[in-house]
């Protein structure tokens, strides 16, 4: 699904990301962990061609993201609230996304019913602009929005942050259900080690822009990660 070769990004002489080689196969749930400044968001931004790389290339389905835009129809992302259009209602936002991905308003209306329990009755039909929703509900609205039109690749930055406990559990279930039913590739970054190890089948640990660990998730992964992130005496 994703192939990274010799990718690097520097800001004013400081290297913030250096990935000589990374490949993410189709259908994988790929977890990205690391402290602040490790390069997680930089990686996502490069992947979405929102910043230019200093060297190297990223390809989604063999399409170089920097030279073509053909990856856009099957790629979706929710990075932060700036991925919502604040002055639209949730429904209007979904219709907009649907129209970009070839779905009619009727199809969207039907599709969105499947998320009723995840939304917990707090999001749909509220007659509120997205900018007036709480942080948690904005996040939920955005995550579901990124699933519209069944993309092949979904990128979520910190999806668990700001969610209430029920929604965190709901989101884990949601991702697992989708993974069972389809071959969507998930890229998930998180500061919550428990959640990310439960949801992802592969974890990559970044530190100062470099890959420090690349592990297939096993029952002992959480312990391993926790020992890495603990303060050393």
């Amino acid at each position, binding site marked *: 699904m994703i192939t990274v070769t010799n990718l690097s990004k520097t800001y004013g002489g400081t290297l913030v990301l250096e990935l000589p080689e990374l490949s993410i196969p189709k259908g994988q749930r790929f977890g990205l962990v690391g402290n602040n400044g490790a390069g997680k968001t930089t990686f996502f931004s490069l992947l979405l061609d929102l*910043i230019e790389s200093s060297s190297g290339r990223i390809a989604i389905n063999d399409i170089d993201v920097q030279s073509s835009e053909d990856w856009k129809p099957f790629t979706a992302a929710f990075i932060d609230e700036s991925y919502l259009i604040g002055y639209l209602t949730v429904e209007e936002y979904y219709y907009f996304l649907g129209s970009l991905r070839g779905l009619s308003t009727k199809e969207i209306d039907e599709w969105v019913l499947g998320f009723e329990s995840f939304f917990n009755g707090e999001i749909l039909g509220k007659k509120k602009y997205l900018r007036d929703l709480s942080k948690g509900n904005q996040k939920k609205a955005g995550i579901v929005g990124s699933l519209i039109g069944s993309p092949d690749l979904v990128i979520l930055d910190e999806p668990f942050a700001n969610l209430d406990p029920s929604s965190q559990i709901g989101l884990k279930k949601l991702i697992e259900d989708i993974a069972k039913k389809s071959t969507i590739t998930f890229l998930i970054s998180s500061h919550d080690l428990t959640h990310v190890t439960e949801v992802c089948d592969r974890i990559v640990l970044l530190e100062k822009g470099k890959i420090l660990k690349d592990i297939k998730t096993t029952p002992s992964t959480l312990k391993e990660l926790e020992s890495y992130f603990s303060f050393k005496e």
Partner: protein
Amino acid sequence: MASYSVIDSIKLSKKKFFRAPQWELKLAIRILISFVVLYFLAAFLFLGVGIYFIAQKSAPEQNPVFLINQFLIYYFGIDLLIRYFVQNLPITNIKPLLIQPISKNKIVQGVMLRSLGSFFNWIPLVILLPFCIVYTLNETTTYTLWIWLLGVLFFAGINNFLVFFINKSRVVAVGLFLLLLLGSVFQNVLGVPLLSFFEKGYDFLFLNPEAVAAPFLLFILTIGVQYVFLKKQLYLDKGFSGKKERIVGSGLTVFDRVGSLGVFIKNDIRLILRNVRARQVVFMGFLFLFYGIIFFTQEVYMESYVMLIFAGIFTTGGFMLTFGQLVPAWDSEYFSFLMCQNIPYRNYLKSKLYLMMFSVVLSLILSLPYLYFGIKIMTIILATAIFNFGMGSFITLYSGAFNATPVKLNVKAKAFENTQNFSFSQLLFTLPKIVLPVLVFYVPFQFFGFTAGIIGLCLTGLLGLLFNGFLLSRIEKTYQKRKHQTLSSFQKT
């Protein structure tokens, strides 16, 4: 408790300014804008000095003060209207102070005192103080003149606080302005002197200095009410919560028929309906409709075609210019989202283009009353509209690609503080938007006369329409090439 003073409040504002990203640029712009403000101050000063002599000349038997009094109600009405659109209470800045050991009285005092520093409060002083000095030098007056000045200043102060109440309710605001409009229609068109009541009041104030007690008490009253009101607002669920907004523009299904372009048009209409800043710009564009009056009513300009073309361009293109120069900045809040969507860039641009073109047509229709000034003026308006429609719209859209300062959609821009969307490149781009039409008129005009000039304008507009596909492709390429630059500057707020 008392350690937080007004000075501390000013210090905080200072830090906010100097620590903002790109503050050097902002400082440079501030300096530039200070010159503009200085220019206005100087103009007002001259006006203030001049009023006395103008009044003497036009109505020698009448006391100049009475002449001024005729205009005061209009001034205060327009003052209130403009304040309504631009003046905001600086309340959001004080949120962090709430849980600090500072008394709420002090916080409220700081906010109210700062609001008095508004530019609008200085205008009457700057105009009327020189007037009063000139008046005193030329006439034998007593202190009554100065009491009258004081009274007028009180009225300005009342406006300063009144506007915050009007801001709370759209119904009150619209009602008040309708009342004023009706009043001036009755006064000037139907001959029912409703507004003379105010004029009489100001005259009374001049003749009976003790009457200053009325505006003074009213001023104190607004301060008191504002004080009590503000203090109640210092809770998260009150003043900081933001108004609960009604959903507007949810229908718009008409545009579904235009396919994927309709989606963008729908979004743009909602953007305008639902965001304070966008509504402000629409209002500005509306004001430009009256730009023609300044020129068309003056005999001196009737033979100066350059000025008339200039007036025509602004009259028919006000909205186009003010709205268009902020494309793509209107979408800056979610620009990275748009950029990773499967978006046909062309449709995105087309929607903005059509909106601008539509505004030109609308402005043209609303400009029809200018027919009153004769066929020649109307011809100029029609020709400049065609130019704006076919060529100006493309130039504006193109120039937008170089405007990389983000727009905060739901935040009001303040008068003379609208630095967030000022850039040198924008200044440069005003040249083709304004000089080009003058040029395509003037060159043929010099050789072949008025009709040729008008044809020149129309042809340029039609040329733009003829090559619309080519122009749009060029613009699209420019936008695409500048994508990463635009993205990174939109992220810096």
